[in-house]
């Protein structure tokens, strides 16, 4: 009663605006897990008086009337409350309130003050179990972030775009920031190279060394306002990754075990002919004059027919007879076996096994220090042959409060990866036709897809004139990859004054990747160097044999009569980062209301990254003889004459300096403004001091309508039906370094190639002309964002619309005397909208249903580009830049049906319907090509539904992407070999005159037709690039379905655990929608051979235990 009276009095006095009385109150503070919070600080607001809670979490304090108390505890969210005797306060852990803070990697900002477009992703909720690469978890989670899994091989980076492309020829890939440090890529791999399947793609992912379990959250910074603090590095967006920290008052040990089983691909998913159908095709090929004895027996590659002719030529002494006779009966028997063989290459080249990931972490903390440490191991025996991966990571993050106002944080991350990949050489591009090819490709997936099912998997066939079997080759031609990534980081935070903090961060990182490509003695690739050396039918055809130019008419010899090849690659990046910032925050309260909220930041940053790339090749390595090297002098003579580089070194250095600052002001949290400026300098433009600096800036404002008194009243009246409304506006300039660095002319060294080895000369050459006007690529962006909350924020909608003007982009310029030069002359416009809708549909004690939908639309148009786009560029699958069209537009020849011989016809550059009269190099007359659409999706997003019933949790996650066109795999050709596997479309091929009225599938051209028209291959190529071979790239993917069971704490505490859960994930199960024309071709995957593999359908069982 007395207390109540006192309260009344307090109220009374307060209403009079006088605070005279002191109230003694007591209360209890709890942590959010229900435990009492020991040692929490309870302060009287605006004073230095306070107390701490005891072992039971209890406190008592005298509070002047009208004053509030502030309850704080390390790792918990500070609460400011009106004192009330007997009050029970539950503090929430910081992790649950991170939504209120925006982490930009350089600063943490109160969300009320933040005016930019950003999406925060909680790692725990989005993690795809069984997918060790954390970057892939972003797919469909953040509106405006598109993730294309061009290859799923571990270590390869997916193609990630934040709000679409920002540069015409640049990479457009976002900046990755981990715990405040920019992660430099180990190798510079541009967007096209990502899908090349080359071995360097295996080390293209800068953060493949991060353990997914260590990640606390992702923050995607999208618009110029959010990214402007990164200035001239931020044009393509920023993804900030925050790793886990120890929490005060908590100590736990957590274990996560993931066990993943991947399904082998199945022929039922792809439309590859079975061996009967294939045999039918061979019979037609045979009838049309292909597969003749004379032609096939000594060909560079021979499969079914070549092998048969070979057997007829092979005498078996034990049998006392030839292996096969040239009789109808023997041939029929041989062919019949092949016809019924139906080899399942997928089954043979893919493995049944379990990929395991084990991760253990320790977390603890007191009010003075906190610590998080983890170890993880990922052991993948390989989905395909030759694709083993083991990755180990260690992570320590310790924070120590040295004094009242000085905190030190030390972090160490380390990872080591041991991986095997099928031996692969780089793709090479024909400088004239633009055709891309890869020598000695043994990628298991593309092999299974492209190899005839009539072949006997246990037989040796012929490739490059040498014996070949895929299994033998995979055993004898492989790449061992070792990647070590270490990061040491220290941070000091000094708070000398209230509201002022000085932060210093230093970090050193080294990433070292070694690739050892072993090509053993008996591998096909090594044998090719000696194949046919004694066979006059082959010796002149085998390009690997050597004819000495100094001895005219000499017989070709092998320059590597024994042994194999060893190719060693090393890529290293050493990165040193330093950053110092001064931050000042102050809130001026008027009448106890936070009226003027001010924060300012100033800082400088210095980064250096030293890159080192080396390659070394050894020929004649005898793998079975202690790897002793035997080589003939002719080898070096040939190498010299042909300009072969056996050893190469290339080093590069990145130096960046930046000064930055920002100022935020908010009036009562209602109206906020922000101004950011940054001044970047870089060494990448060479020694030109005028080009190297770039100032960037951002101005933005926001209006938090829900903080307005009228809104609050209204919300109260409507029972919070409309509970939140924020309007954000920003306009900014950010930039990006270009790949060009010729502000001053660039000279490099070279060996002048001359046919006579002894006439070669070391020389310097001018690799680039100087361009004093060279500058950064830049982007102006205007962003409007509206955030709405309904039903007491149970439904949240975040929408953004943006208009971008990318200018000073690199493009081609044609000068008066120098032809094509690369300079800042192009521009591009883009715009888009994004929306994220999160809704707690049902929220009861036992049952919850949450839905998250993300949606993004992005449209780009190249507005200014002087570029020669040749027909061959415009029609090829990755699309090409052309003024007036979206970034990377795809064009097609207009298919005009088959002619009466079954040859495809298209419209050529003169407007005529033709078969082979087509000029692929044409660049002036392009009207005959049909514009199909962009090759990059314009609509992307995801839909997640989470259902929780008591301890069960079901998550269904769908991703989608629309608006792009895809080129179907180029499977048609003027001639085929007896090794090729034909797709099922061939069933409907043209066979006899008249069929052209019924089918669009071209005939198998006869030898005669090929001889009659030397350019027949043009007709088939044009068909591959025609309107008949385009599919819609849109898809809806059932990305992940997971079911989780959390054990009751009471139940598991009996066995000493605090948390335990089991989870079953089914990932990449199926495509809900994809164009039927794709026939199993994955719309995301680029089948380029080498080391590329598509997404696998997989099941993961996860156990999580906590002590």
């Amino acid at each position, binding site marked *: 009663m007395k207390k109540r009276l006192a309260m009344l009095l307090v109220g009374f006095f307060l209403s009079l605006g006088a605070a005279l009385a002191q109230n003694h109150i007591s209360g209890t503070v709890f942590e959010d897990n229900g435990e009492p919070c020991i040692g929490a600080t309870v302060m009287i607001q605006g004073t230095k008086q306070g107390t701490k809670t005891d072992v039971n979490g209890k406190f008592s304090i005298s509070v002047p009337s009208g004053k509030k108390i502030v309850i704080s505890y390390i790792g918990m969210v500070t609460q400011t409350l009106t004192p009330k005797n007997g009050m029970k306060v539950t503090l929430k852990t910081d992790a649950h309130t991170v939504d209120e803070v925006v982490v930009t990697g350089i600063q943490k900002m109160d969300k009320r003050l933040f005016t930019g477009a950003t999406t925060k992703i909680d790692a725990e909720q989005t993690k795809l179990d069984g997918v060790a690469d954390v970057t892939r978890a972003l797919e469909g989670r953040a509106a405006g972030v598109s993730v294309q899994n061009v290859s799923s091989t571990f270590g390869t980076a997916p193609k990630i775009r934040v709000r679409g492309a920002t540069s015409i020829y640049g990479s457009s890939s976002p900046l990755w920031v981990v715990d405040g440090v920019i992660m430099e890529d180990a190798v510079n791999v541009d967007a096209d190279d990502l899908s090349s399947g080359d071995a360097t793609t295996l080390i293209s992912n800068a953060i493949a060394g991060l353990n997914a379990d260590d990640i606390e959250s992702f923050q995607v910074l999208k618009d110029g306002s959010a990214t402007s603090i990164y200035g001239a590095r931020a044009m393509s967006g920023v993804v900030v990754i925050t790793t886990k920290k120890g929490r005060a008052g908590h100590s736990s040990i957590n274990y996560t075990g993931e066990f993943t089983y991947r399904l082998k691909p199945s022929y039922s998913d792809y439309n590859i002919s079975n061996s009967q159908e294939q045999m039918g095709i061979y019979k037609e090929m045979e009838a049309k004059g292909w597969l003749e004895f004379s032609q096939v027996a000594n060909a560079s590659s021979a499969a079914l027919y070549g092998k048969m002719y070979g057997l007829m030529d092979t005498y078996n002494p034990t049998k006392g007879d030839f292996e096969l006779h040239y009789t109808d009966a023997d041939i029929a028997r041989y062919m019949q076996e092949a016809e019924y063989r139906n080899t399942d290459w997928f089954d043979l080249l893919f493995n049944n096994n379990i990929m395991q990931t084990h991760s253990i972490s320790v977390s603890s903390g007191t009010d003075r220090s906190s610590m998080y440490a983890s170890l993880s191991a990922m052991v993948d025996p390989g989905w395909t042959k030759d694709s083993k991966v083991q990755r180990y990571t260690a992570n320590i993050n310790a924070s120590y409060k040295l004094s009242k106002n000085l905190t030190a944080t030390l972090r160490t991350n380390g990872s080591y990866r041991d991986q095997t990949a099928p031996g692969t050489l780089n793709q090479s591009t024909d400088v004239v036709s633009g055709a891309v090819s890869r020598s000695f490709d043994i990628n298991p997936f593309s092999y299974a897809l492209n190899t005839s099912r009539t072949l006997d998997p246990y037989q040796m066939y012929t490739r490059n004139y040498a014996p070949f079997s895929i299994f033998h080759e995979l055993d004898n031609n492989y790449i061992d990859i070792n990647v070590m990534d270490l990061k040491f980081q220290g941070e000091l935070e000094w708070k000398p004054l209230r509201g002022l903090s000085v932060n210093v961060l230093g970090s050193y990182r080294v990433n070292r990747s070694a690739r050892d490509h072993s090509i053993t003695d008996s591998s096909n690739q090594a044998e090719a160097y000696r194949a046919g050396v004694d066979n006059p039918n082959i010796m002149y055809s085998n390009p690997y044999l050597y004819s000495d130019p100094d001895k*005219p*008419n000499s017989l070709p010899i092998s320059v590597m009569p024994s042994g194999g090849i060893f190719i060693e690659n090393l890529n290293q990046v050493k990165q040193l980062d330093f950053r110092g910032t001064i931050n000042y925050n102050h809130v001026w309260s008027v009448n106890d209301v936070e009226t003027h909220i001010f924060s300012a930041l100033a800082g*400088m940053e210095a980064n250096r990254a030293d890159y080192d790339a080396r390659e070394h090749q050894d020929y004649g390595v005898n793998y079975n003889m202690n790897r002793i090297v035997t080589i003939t002098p002719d080898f070096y003579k040939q190498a010299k004459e042909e*300009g072969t580089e056996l050893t190469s070194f290339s080093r590069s250095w990145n130096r960046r300096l930046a000064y930055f600052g920002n100022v935020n002001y908010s009036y009562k949290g209602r109206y906020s403004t922000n101004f950011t400026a940054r001044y970047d300098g870089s*060494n990448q*433009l060479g020694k030109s001091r005028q080009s190297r600096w770039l100032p960037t800036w951002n101005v933005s404002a926001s209006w938090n309508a829900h903080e307005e008194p009228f809104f609050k009243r209204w919300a109260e009246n409507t029972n919070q039906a409309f509970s939140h409304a924020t309007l954000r506006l920003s306009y900014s300039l950010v930039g990006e370094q270009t790949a060009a660095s010729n502000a001053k002319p660039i000279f490099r060294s070279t060996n002048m190639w*001359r046919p006579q080895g002894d006439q070669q000369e070391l020389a310097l050459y001018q690799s680039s002309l100087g361009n004093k006007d060279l500058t950064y690529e830049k982007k102006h962006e205007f962003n409007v964002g509206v955030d709405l909350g309904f039903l007491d924020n149970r439904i949240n909608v975040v929408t953004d619309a943006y208009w971008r003007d990318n200018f000073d982009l690199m493009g081609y310029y044609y000068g008066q005397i120098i032809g094509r030069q690369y300079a800042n002359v192009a521009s591009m416009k883009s715009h888009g909208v994004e929306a994220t809708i999160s809704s707690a549909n049902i929220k009861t004690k036992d049952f919850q249903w949450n839905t998250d939908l993300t949606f993004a639309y992005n449209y780009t148009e190249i507005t200014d580009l002087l570029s020669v786009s040749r027909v061959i560029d415009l029609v090829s699958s990755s699309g090409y830049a052309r003024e007036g069209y979206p970034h990377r537009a795809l064009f097609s020849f207009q298919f005009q049906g088959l002619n009466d011989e079954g040859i495809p016809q298209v419209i050529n550059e003169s407007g005529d319907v033709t078969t082979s009269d087509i000029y692929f*190099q044409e660049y002036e007359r392009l009207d005959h090509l049909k514009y199909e659409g962009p090759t990059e999706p314009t609509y992307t997003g995801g839909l997640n539904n989470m259902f929780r019933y008591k301890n069960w949790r079901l998550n269904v996650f769908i991703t989608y992407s629309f608006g792009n066109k895809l080129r179907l795999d180029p499977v048609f050709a003027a001639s085929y070999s007896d090794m090729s596997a034909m797709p099922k479309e061939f069933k409907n091929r043209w066979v006899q005159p008249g069929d052209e009225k019924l089918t669009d599938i071209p005939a198998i051209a006869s030898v005669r037709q090929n001889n009659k028209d030397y350019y027949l291959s043009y007709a088939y190529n044009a068909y591959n690039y025609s309107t008949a071979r385009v599919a819609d790239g849109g898809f809806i993917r059932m990305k992940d379905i997971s079911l989780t069971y959390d054990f009751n704490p009471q139940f598991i505490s009996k066995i000493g655990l605090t948390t335990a859960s089991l989870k079953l994930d089914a990932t990449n199960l199926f495509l809900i929608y994809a164009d039927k024309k794709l026939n199993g071709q994955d719309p995301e995957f680029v089948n380029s051979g080498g080391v590329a593999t598509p997404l696998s359908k997989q099941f993961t069982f996860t156990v999580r235990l906590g002590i």
Partner: protein
Amino acid sequence: MRMTRGLLCAAFFILQSSFFVSCNDFLDKEPDDRVEIKTAEQAIMLLTASYPDANYGWFCELMTDNIIDLNSVHLPVSSDAAQNPTHYNLGSSGRQDDEAFRFEPVKSSTSSDTPGGLWSSFYITINSVNEVLEAIERISDNGRQMTPQLSAAKGEALLIRSYCHFILVNVFSQAYKNDEMSKNDIGIPYVTEVINTVDDTYSRSNVTDTYKKILADLEEGLANISDINYEKPKYHFNTNAAHAFACRVYLFLHQWQKAVEQADLVLGTDNAQLLPKLFDYAPLDDCSYLSDFANVWQEPDDFNNLILIDTYSTIFRKSRYRYEQGGLAARAIYYHNAPMWRRWVGNPSAFVSGLFGSRDYGFAPGWIGEQFQYTDKVAGIGYAHTFRREFTAMELLLERAEAKINLGDLAGASEDLCTYHASTMNFSDKTRDIYVANNGMTALTDEMINDWFAKNTTSNYNCFDDWEFLKRMNPDWNIPEAAVPYMNCVNYFRRYETNFTGKRLFDLKRWGMEWSHEYGVDNEVITMTWNDPRKAIEIPQDAIAAGMEPSQPASLTTNDSTSITKPASFSIDDLRYY
């Protein structure tokens, strides 16, 4: 508190100032392994790669009377065959070939073997040379510390610059007439400054002015040139090559005496000593593949090759399509009867030289043979190199002969021509037995010149009754009647010697000759008159679009041809078909 604040300020100040002072040093680190030209050795090494890599041979040759359209109705190569006119239906190696053959501006391609490719490649080379000259200025402290090495490098650089502009003016402008007349002909931009921005503008001035600058660079280059820097002299402007170049420039400028003097510096004045310096056919005996022939012709140890210039060119392959050296063109060059090879239907030395092709389609000589540098052996992808024998002792001998004729020294000219011809019989013993034994091939004599080359007859394709047409180029240019056979002989030998090098076009232009092409099955006749604006080849369209003055007046636009075109691919496989 004040203390803390002071410390903070001090710390921040020190931090900032130390970085401000050092930040430009910090950022001065080069981004990669690029080389800064700081030493004389580096400047000299930059010159090694500062030779133009474009070949003007193919598109110039296409415009000359050395090439016919096989699709037009034409007579067979050999006069011994039945004279049945025939025609084919072949594709060209690209639309750019149709354009060049029809004397139209080449718009369809700017790749190698086109005027556009030549234009930018030569100016890139000129820029590289200008970089060297700038570096030499820097290294020598504006000439105050010139070393012999630096001055030799300066000489080489100036000669390359002079040479590049010389070729450009001969390709893209009208031929030199005289100082007055040539002031009315558009020249080419003479670039002596380093390019440091993409949108610089240049003036084309006039031919007289351009030649003045060519001559200035040439003469300063000659004064400085020396062989001291060269380890592989044949790939550089060595002293001999420099004099041969000077001889050619003086010849083109009608400065006959100077031309002879320069040639003498290389060839000497005693022709008896000359033969061993000229081409030796003997090693050709062992050759069977194109690359073998190319190796012999492009041999750096051969004195005859004064300089070799590496170009990216597929000229040999391009000569195997629709426009070839067939029909009467081949007959005029080597497939006719001549007193020097009475018993043979064609010139035996031409056959020994490695003539590829056939009588049906036409020929191409082994000296333009391609050298293939692989980048991917399996795919057969790489770079096609054609080494231009830009200056040879044999050609220099013919140039000296021409200068001597113009000086009135007919005896001297006769001696040079006979020496030239004697060298074409420089066979191995084995080949000699086939061709030379029993007077199958006889040495040229002064009488034969005066007899065989006297005037135009039905079987003597390269002779004129007079050389009065020279007067069109220069009213003072007079070839007396007695000298006509010698000029005819020079014309014939030059036509053979420069076959497929493109230099025939320069001769046709500077002599003011007229010729025509027959195009297509309808034998459309396209004639090139003596002062035809189309003789100045049009610069690339991109350059015109960027504001450069065109070579030809705007009224000269012709319709695009719509013939069948096929692109050539740089695949080694193509070579195997021959």
